[in-house]
């Protein structure tokens, strides 16, 4: 283990017993819930606000502030856990749900108590069959132990929690897409306003938080906001679970403080690149995040601000490390194929644009592209940004723009090769 790693959320992930209620309790499980149920709900919200915790799903919105948007009345409200982990490169939530399902459940009950919600759902992506089974079992255990249901631990607080399985759609990771899906509709994002905190699931006030965010709440309440803030930076507080994949020696899920340098993350925590390979690029926040060149990667820190400053984003913390054996045209082709496949089809710029740039990229890869096509990818992508209901359009546009801008020579090489080949064909 690298000395740069911290074990806050992930302290017991290596212990198989941590999966079951008994083992979880042995390591202090549900003790924070006991503490939280004795607190004023507002105090919990204040603590979360003070901790600086930001949404770990991708957008990085301050969690306590989000909770504060709920109307101050007795209207029923819902807490939804976003476990539709779908951003390519991301797998940290799956790891947590498999190894520490009760950690999520405990975090959720505390959060639900804070926002005065009596019903919550964990919306898990359909492909996560194993994690769903583990969570289902954990929920049964929690009900059995009186940790869910009526009058939890004699506190007078009632809360029901259920698990809902998606069925294969990246867009359901967008919070309003997820709400649509949970409502039994196509997982299409909803118009905002109204925002979910005002009108969400079934038009009731709704809070949607990521798995890791909700689990982190437990540790913030356990240790206090100040202790949590000891990790990370001023504006990016706490620890973060990074999913690291691609060409590193030790890919995996690692918990490190926010603000760690990407260089350390790759070369220290993940054991660096395979022998003889050179770093070519890094996608630092899931495949929708603008790509960083090797040079940019070695200068950036893994926190919301540094990455934004470098023109990319932290996203879900999915780091895809790319060495010099990769072909960037090919990787963009793979990436855009995905967003084309996953566009829900509601908004025209995204529905049509994702297909368009994917097809152009594919043509270039097949040697059928022109120099004009390289510019066209960028031009189309720029007109897809910020024009749609949700951010999927941007998610496709950002890699497109950054790949063709930063690795233009590789795109040109394909174009030139195609021109040559066609010339030879013409003469043959």
């Amino acid at each position, binding site marked *: 283990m690298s000395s740069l790693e911290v074990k806050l959320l992930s302290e017991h992930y290596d212990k198989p017993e941590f999966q079951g209620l008994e083992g979880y309790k042995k390591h202090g499980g549900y003790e924070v819930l006991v503490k939280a149920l004795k607190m004023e709900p507002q105090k919990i919200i204040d603590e979360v606000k003070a901790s600086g915790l930001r949404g770990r799903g991708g957008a990085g919105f301050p969690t306590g502030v989000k909770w504060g948007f709920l109307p101050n009345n007795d209207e029923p409200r819902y807490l939804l856990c976003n476990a539709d982990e779908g951003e390519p490169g991301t797998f940290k939530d799956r790891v947590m749900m498999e190894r520490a399902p009760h950690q999520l459940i405990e975090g959720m009950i505390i959060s639900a108590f804070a926002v005065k919600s009596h019903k919550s759902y964990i919306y898990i992506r359909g492909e996560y069959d194993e994690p769903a089974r583990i969570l289902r079992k954990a929920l049964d255990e929690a009900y059995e132990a009186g940790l869910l249901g009526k009058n939890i631990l004699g506190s007078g607080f009632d809360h029901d929690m259920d698990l809902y399985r998606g069925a294969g*759609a990246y867009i359901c990771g967008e919070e309003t897409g997820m709400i649509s899906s949970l409502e039994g509709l*196509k997982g299409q994002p909803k*118009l905002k*306003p109204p925002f979910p905190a005002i009108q969400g699931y079934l038009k009731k006030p709704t809070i949607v938080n990521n798995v890791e965010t909700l689990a982190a709440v437990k540790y913030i309440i356990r240790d206090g906001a100040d202790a949590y803030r000891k990790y990370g930076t001023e504006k990016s507080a706490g620890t973060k679970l990074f999913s690291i994949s691609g060409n590193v020696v030790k890919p995996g899920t690692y918990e490190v403080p926010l603000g760690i340098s990407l260089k350390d993350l790759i070369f220290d925590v993940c054991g660096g690149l395979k022998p003889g390979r050179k770093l070519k690029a890094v996608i630092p926040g899931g495949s929708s995040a603008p790509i960083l060149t090797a040079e940019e990667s070695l200068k950036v820190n893994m926190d919301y601000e540094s990455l934004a400053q470098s023109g990319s984003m932290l996203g879900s913390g999915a780091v895809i490390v790319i060495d010099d054996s990769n072909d960037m045209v090919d990787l963009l082709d793979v990436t855009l194929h995905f967003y*084309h*496949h*996953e*566009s*829900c*089809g*509601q*908004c*025209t*710029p995204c*529905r*049509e*644009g*994702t*297909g*368009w740039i994917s*097809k*152009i990229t594919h*043509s270039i890869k097949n040697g059928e592209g022109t120099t004009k*096509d390289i510019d*066209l990818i960028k031009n189309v992508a720029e*007109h897809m940004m*910020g*024009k*749609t*209901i949700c951010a999927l359009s941007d998610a496709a546009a950002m890699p497109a723009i950054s790949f063709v801008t930063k690795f233009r020579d590789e795109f040109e090489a394909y174009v030139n090769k195609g021109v040559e080949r066609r010339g030879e064909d013409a003469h043959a």
Partner: protein
Amino acid sequence: MPKCTINGKEIEVPQGTTVIEAFKMLGDDICHYCWHPGLSVAGVCRLCMVHIEGMPKLQIACNTEVRDGMVVTNQTDDVKDTVKWGLDFHLINHPLDCPICDQAGECGLQDQYMKFGKYDPEMAEPKVKKHKVVDLGPTVVLDSERCILCSRCVRFTEEVTETNELGIFNRGDRAEIGTVQGRPLDNNYSLNTVDICPVGALTSKDFRFRQRVWYLKDSESICPGCSTGCNVKVYFNEEGLWRVKPRYNAEVNGHWMCDEGRNTYKYVNAAHRLKKVKAGQSGDWSQEEVFPETMKLGEKFRAAAEKNPESIAVLVTGQYTNEEFKNFFEFVADELKVKNIFHWINNPEKFDDFDGLLLRGDKNPNTYGLKEEMKSRGGFKSLEDLQGKMSQFEWVLVLGPENQSQFPDLKEKVDLLSQAKSVIWLSACETPELDALRAPTHQIPMKTYIEKEGSFTNFKGLVQEFKRGTTVIEDALTLQEVVALLRGHELDYRNRPQPIGGTKKNHFTNVRGQL
């Protein structure tokens, strides 16, 4: 009431008004496909983009409520560029088959392209292939490749008819509208989906391939199909009528009309019409000139009435204008003192039906007006009284229905009247049932709603005026003209209204062959 500024113009709007509605109130141009004032907001075409002062990103006008002091414009370069590209995104997979598309001439894509087109097609990749010529049911045909997935039609079947036949299946650029497993879109409002389709994806089986819309003229009118009195637009050329579409009236029909009402243009066309006076009985009829024959008839009719008003019976349907009724009853009831006035309704069992949306069982546009007119004259006699007494009348005058197909007891009435001594039947159309009348009869050709002006009073007492659109049968008479001729007044038939043609002569239809 919030006040805002739109493109430099100040406007005060009711609370809750959206920016796009404010644009409409001002009459300012704003591009949109998915927004429709009669449906929920979908916000998916992304074309009604506006710049709002103080907001970093462009907003869609359809989902933005006007707030006091808001300063909005769609005249910035950013908005214009966004709309231009937004339109291009709509067009890259569109087949651009305007020359064979029925929507051409009234297509949202064509209209916007002329205003905002990119004029530089950059899409060189293969287009997405989708289903074409999909038979959606008895009235509508779908071309999925033309569809821009605005979801208006789906929202219509979900929100207005609540029949849910349509859905958008699949996702991304593979998404297509359709019905499940080829089940038909079959409700009495299905053709509204064609009206609200901003492109040529949904076309009317009845209208498609029959006329180019730019050869048609239109006229605002009132649907005579039932007592609701939907406000409509009727489209015609010198050959006759081709289609009927709804016209917005918040108090009556909103944005919609029923499919049954759309059929009311058909009987108006010359093929179905009485062109001369038909005199005779039981299938043995002669054609007589309208004016002299009706005047001749008037002499006898008046003479009989003057001798004994009780020898005259009048059967009235609620199918004529208020002005016609007034004029008619002044003559028959007030002058001739006829008391035997009977109200013939289409179908007593279903007369009070209502489908919950627009269509009523009373298939007459002016039952209300008719009853009003008769109120001061003591009302109608019961139709039952006629049974077995027919032979005691010298003359029975029938103000027959324009749209006879809506009167299921037509044959029954013909049988009843066959016992009379002589019958004058005012009718717009020719039917075999009428020709079977066994009493000596004069069928007098009448004008239809589109050929005259006046007003109908709908079921709730709303008086709706309408203008003449065109003339199909020149010799056909209005009820006022019938009254004048029966009174013995000469009519100036050299100045009678002539047919109104389309804007240009449609040579294609003139040389159309028979299949």
